[in-house]
């Protein structure tokens, strides 16, 4: 053991090691800061964070989890690309190959599919977390908007991926989905034509969805994620309760522009200088180790789940026979339920208003109080209104998923569907 430790110690003194890591390992404050600031990946984080921000019960780690799932999806997705051919003649067979002949093909497909579903859910929960803790309030209005773009990108990525297996589920979900687009005023039919590369869901459509799914949308996602994270830093780290005044003469600090770095150049009080010892902790190892443990746990859960449950694959796409009922992916079933009342109102107007409404929340709700705590009493009205929206979305989704049967008729879970 002593020998082993010597070996490690010797290794750390080699020129190669020194060229990679420029700081020592001893847990000094200097090294803890350098561990973050001299590391390309970790310097996404500030060197120190407020203790409040580290509490799991504040963020539930949902933003970080969304990002981790995006990484899992990127890695598994790139691996799947090695076998997948975006052709109406081959795509479905590739799915079967993944399932039956390629080592771990099914596991990879399951991981990709379940991570995608989970990501939609987690991003939505993250949005709810930010809302209920008032995290969108000044100065974070813009980042809330970036978040909405991320949510839409997440949904659109899932939707474009849905067509790729080229089975019945895929074909009809995309037929219905793209027809909704054609109800948009004036440009609608053109949008559908451009999206499908023609009038039918065929080879052109598959190729376009593939390109969107594996390049255009992931690149956009990466870009907006970078902006999202950069903005969190520029908005003064993640939200928390206002920092109590320290000096009596201290003027009310404006929106913090910077947490650390450049401190000497910034005029006016920086938020954490005075409170530093009690209020902040080093990111390394406190936050970084937490993130690693969380990521490992999720990875294990995803594997266990993927081991027991297979991603669905129906029969080969058949334009002649619509399955009954034909359902979109679950996260669009609330939308499909609305669409079953009116294609334009439910499929175009309602979602457009919802998106615009959500983006505008920080500018409508100008009440500055209640930031940094869950369900603050000072924000009753805002919380009630948002909860009504969330509840409506959840109820519509549940109806579409569990209570709709053949011919989109109403069936209770205990009622049997008529056989054809």
């Amino acid at each position: 053991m002593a020998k082993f430790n010597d070996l490690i110690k010797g290794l750390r003194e080699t020129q190669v090691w020194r060229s990679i890591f420029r700081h020592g390992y001893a847990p000094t404050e200097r090294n803890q800061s350098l561990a973050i600031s001299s590391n390309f990946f970790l310097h996404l984080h500030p060197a120190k964070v407020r203790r409040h921000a580290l509490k799991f019960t504040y963020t539930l780690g949902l933003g970080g989890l969304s990002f981790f799932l995006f990484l899992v999806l990127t890695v598994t997705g790139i691996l799947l690309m090695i076998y997948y051919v975006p052709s109406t003649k081959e795509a479905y067979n590739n799915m079967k190959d993944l399932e039956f002949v390629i080592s771990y093909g099914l596991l990879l497909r399951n991981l990709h599919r379940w991570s995608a579903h989970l990501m939609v859910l987690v991003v939505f929960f993250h949005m709810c977390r930010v809302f209920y803790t008032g995290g969108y309030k000044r100065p974070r209005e813009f980042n809330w908007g970036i978040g909405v773009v991320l949510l839409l990108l997440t949904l659109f990525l899932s939707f474009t991926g849905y067509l790729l297996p080229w089975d019945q589920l895929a074909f009809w979900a995309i037929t219905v989905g793209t027809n909704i687009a054609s109800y948009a005023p004036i440009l609608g039919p053109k949008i559908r034509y451009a999206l499908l590369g023609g009038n039918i869901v065929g080879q052109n459509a598959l190729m376009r969805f593939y390109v969107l799914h594996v390049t255009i949308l992931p690149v956009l996602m990466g870009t907006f994620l970078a902006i999202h994270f950069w903005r969190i830093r520029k908005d003064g780290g993640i939200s928390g309760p206002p920092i109590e005044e320290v000096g009596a003469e201290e003027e009310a600090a404006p929106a913090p522009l910077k947490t650390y770095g450049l401190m000497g150049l910034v005029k006016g009080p920086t938020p954490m200088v005075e409170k530093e010892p009690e209020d902040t902790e080093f990111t390394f190892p406190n936050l970084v180790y937490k993130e690693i443990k969380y990521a490992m746990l999720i990875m294990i859960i995803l594997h266990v789940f993927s081991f027991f449950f297979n991603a669905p694959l129906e029969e080969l796409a058949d334009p002649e026979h619509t399955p009954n009922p034909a359902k979109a992916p679950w996260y669009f079933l609330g939308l499909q339920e609305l669409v079953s009342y009116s294609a334009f109102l439910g499929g175009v107007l309602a979602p457009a208003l919802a998106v615009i409404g959500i983006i505008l929340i920080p500018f409508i709700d100008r009440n500055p109080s209640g930031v940094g705590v869950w369900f603050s009493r000072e924000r009753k009205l805002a919380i009630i209104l948002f909860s009504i929206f969330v509840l409506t979305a959840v109820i519509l989704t549940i109806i579409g998923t569990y209570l709709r049967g053949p011919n989109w008729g109403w069936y209770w879970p205990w009622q049997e569907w008529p056989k054809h």
Partner: protein
Amino acid sequence: MPEEKGGKIKRRDFMLWIGWGTLFPVFAGMIEETVKFIFPNVLYEPATTFRAGRPEDYPSDSVTFLAEKRVFVFRDNGGFRALSAVCTHLGCTVRQEKKGFFCPCHGSVFDANGFVLSGPAPKPLDWLSIALTRKGELVIDVAKFVETGYKLKV
């Protein structure tokens, strides 16, 4: 900054206009290129017209579903009618049930003439152009609509 003299345009402004005047057309051009590029000019989709066999192939007073083309062909009193099976709501294939048609996607119900009885479909099912070739074969065009109940007399 020098004063403007004798109504002449300042050099600086002139350059500025050249700058903006170049930038905008360049951007407009790039957008135009990209958008035009996305819209295909030639489609290799199956033809919308197809031969549907000879009139004798259809028994009188019958409804035949041509699944591949998503068309119902009606024959009655010596005439032919063709009804599109594409739901006018969001494009699922309707199926014939009892006296009319049902769409499985969002539950639209149509009567035997394709008129909407209930559900979200905004307009009736389309009646399609149906004609006879010189050789006496039926031709249907799924992209050409005719008025409700149009009948081809044979």
